């Protein structure tokens, strides 16, 4: 059971990492516009002219 000595801290650290990631995404405003974020994923950055012309 010595394995617990490093498994438990590791599990906790991974969990905290996830929590930190979540809090970061929250503070950087990623939950402010959920509908828009869904669409932005499919926007092409390099086709400006095509969209401007339409």
């Amino acid at each position, binding site marked *: 059971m010595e394995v617990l000595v490093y498994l438990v801290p590791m599990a906790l650290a991974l969990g905290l990492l996830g929590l930190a990631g979540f809090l970061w995404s929250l503070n950087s405003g990623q939950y402010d*516009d959920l509908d828009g974020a869904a669409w932005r994923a499919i926007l092409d950055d390099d086709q400006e002219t095509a969209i401007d012309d339409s």
Partner: protein
Amino acid sequence: MSDLRDLSHFLRWDGGTARFELAVEGIHCAGCMAKIERGLAAVPEVSRARVNLTDKRVAVEWAGGAPDPARVVDRLSELGFKAYPFEPARAEADEAQAAAALLRRLGVAAFAAMNIMLLSVSVWSGNVTDITPEQRDFFHWLSALIALPAAAYAGQPFFRSAIRALRAKSLNMDVPITLGVLLALAMSVFETLGHAEHAYFDSAIMLLAFLLAGRYLDQNMRRRTRALAGNLAALRAETAVKFVGNGEIREVPIASIGPRDLVLVRPGERIAVDGVIIEGRSDVDQSLITGETAHVAVGKGAAVYAGTVNVTGTLRVEVRAAAAGTLLDDIKRLLDRATAARSRYVRLADRAARLYAPMVHVTALATLLGWLAAGAGFHDAIVTAIAVLIITCPCALGLAVPAVQVVAAGALFRAGVLLNAGDAVERLAEVDTVLFDKTGTLTLPEPELVDAAEVAPSLLALAGRLALSSRHPLAAAIAAAAGAKAPLADAVEVPGQGVCAMVDDVAVKLGRPSFCGATAEAEAAEQRDGEASLIAFAHGTERHVFAVRQRLRPDAAAVVGRLKRVGLAVEIVSGDRAEAVAPVAARLGIAAFHAAMTPAEKIARIAALKAHGRRVLMVGDGLNDAPSLAAAHVSLSPVTAVHLSQATADAVFLSERLAPVAAALAIAAKARRVMRAYLWLAAGYIFVAVPLAFLGFASPLVAALAMSGSSLLVTANALRARPSTREAS
């Protein structure tokens, strides 16, 4: 035009960066977002432009340089989007902040719940296999390490609300929740100290996580409707033409106008301020204030009120500080009193809590005494009693009401009703009497041409084109009826009389019957319809008198019929004359109507109904309705209502039709049925769970299963609050 606009009031400065927010109509998809963001990025000196698709807004920033907000509005209109400068409301920022704070707490609680559950599952499986007491203690202490700080942070909304309730010597759902969580944590620490087999850290934190999820959904829905309501306010935000310095004028937002400023009000414009006329004479349409549809003549020295429409002449108005005794002041005073009376409403969940909390606490006490009486040790007795408290902790109930609320708010949203107040759904469900205002509520806010079919189409088309040159509301009705788009060249407006122009060397005139030489026709028209406003048209020797009047909303009769069929009493309370109200009441089949009512009389009518135990829904739009909107059990306003009424109403409906009123009542009734079903479900759950816990079977595993099981059941049941397709149509 753009050089006359002064939008600097809407800029928000943060160091050297200026920020400008706009509500934009017609953003639907990725294409619109890309078009707007790229189109605005091309405007010189704009450093950042970002679309928020959820809230239908655009934020523009200038880093250094001179910001030119008017240019942004123009650019958006070139791109094909109507944009309105937006002033972030305080209440909205608070809602957004509350939603973000709840999400943060939910994140922490969910993180803690997952990690503790990991440890708990190990303990549960270890308990039936080969875990050593040392390992179990280690896992329990680890759980405590995660659970205690997480609960202290994530549980704060519940703890605070419970303390508030107890201070007010009352009970709400948060009292048993707080008690359950705190006792579970305390007992678990105590048990861990005694090397016990069971600890309830997982239950306590999971409970918080489930409840926070419910609260967050509720808060987010509210934030979203408030954001869209804010957009509507921006789109209707009024501007005024203000004199700056030596006789020059600027169009500025109302918010930047103060007392003693001079404003110019042109014919056809809505007067945006309270003030005194210092120059000019005109007729004023006060229908939004008093409900009276006949115009009032005003001249120098007369007081004018925000919300009225200047009909004929140009006025210079000095803005006045709100002095005691004005109409607006009276209305505000009535409003304050009425609002205070309504805030005493107790929500369904809290009423249930008043029954529920004492029952649960008495059961726990009975468990303690029962076990002691049966000869058990004090330790076993108290552990079992606390287990009863934990398992009956109203997790499902705490999740249920917000869940139904969210589903109902979503259904209302689709039906075109935006909620202002959190408990409006519950209050709507209790309504048994509906009071309608007439002008602007049962009727459409803009007057309409009634005899379009009797006029030769070519004549109507010509009149419509001439009407485009006038700002008079009656002319606007004719232009709308004719569908005119191209104004006549060289049309001249004769103040107080009408407009005239020359077409192929023939004079055309539109305006007062005397101006067009159509007095005889006007008298004949007045015989036919005494209430309509008349506007004459002359083309050479041809004459016609148009009758313009307020028209009922297209489905008003059907909706009133539907309300009566489901057993609601319907009445009209109007500030307009009896001769104008009676025909409307007759056409809608409403027997009870009250005309020429002042705001105080409307409140008195509501109070009289209340005294008979009636729950009144007030539907109104005018300034004169605002106090009665606040006094009624629950209230609705059309989106065309004056700002004060909209802010007072519990919900705002967006349609030109009256159908959202009936839909709101139906959805609310259904939501309450589902909420009630929950309360029975919760009672049933207690009948199963309490005996188990009483007998000492409520191990942490059983508690966890019961909690997540009941929460899933709740979420599934909440979906029932959605209206079926039949009801939605």
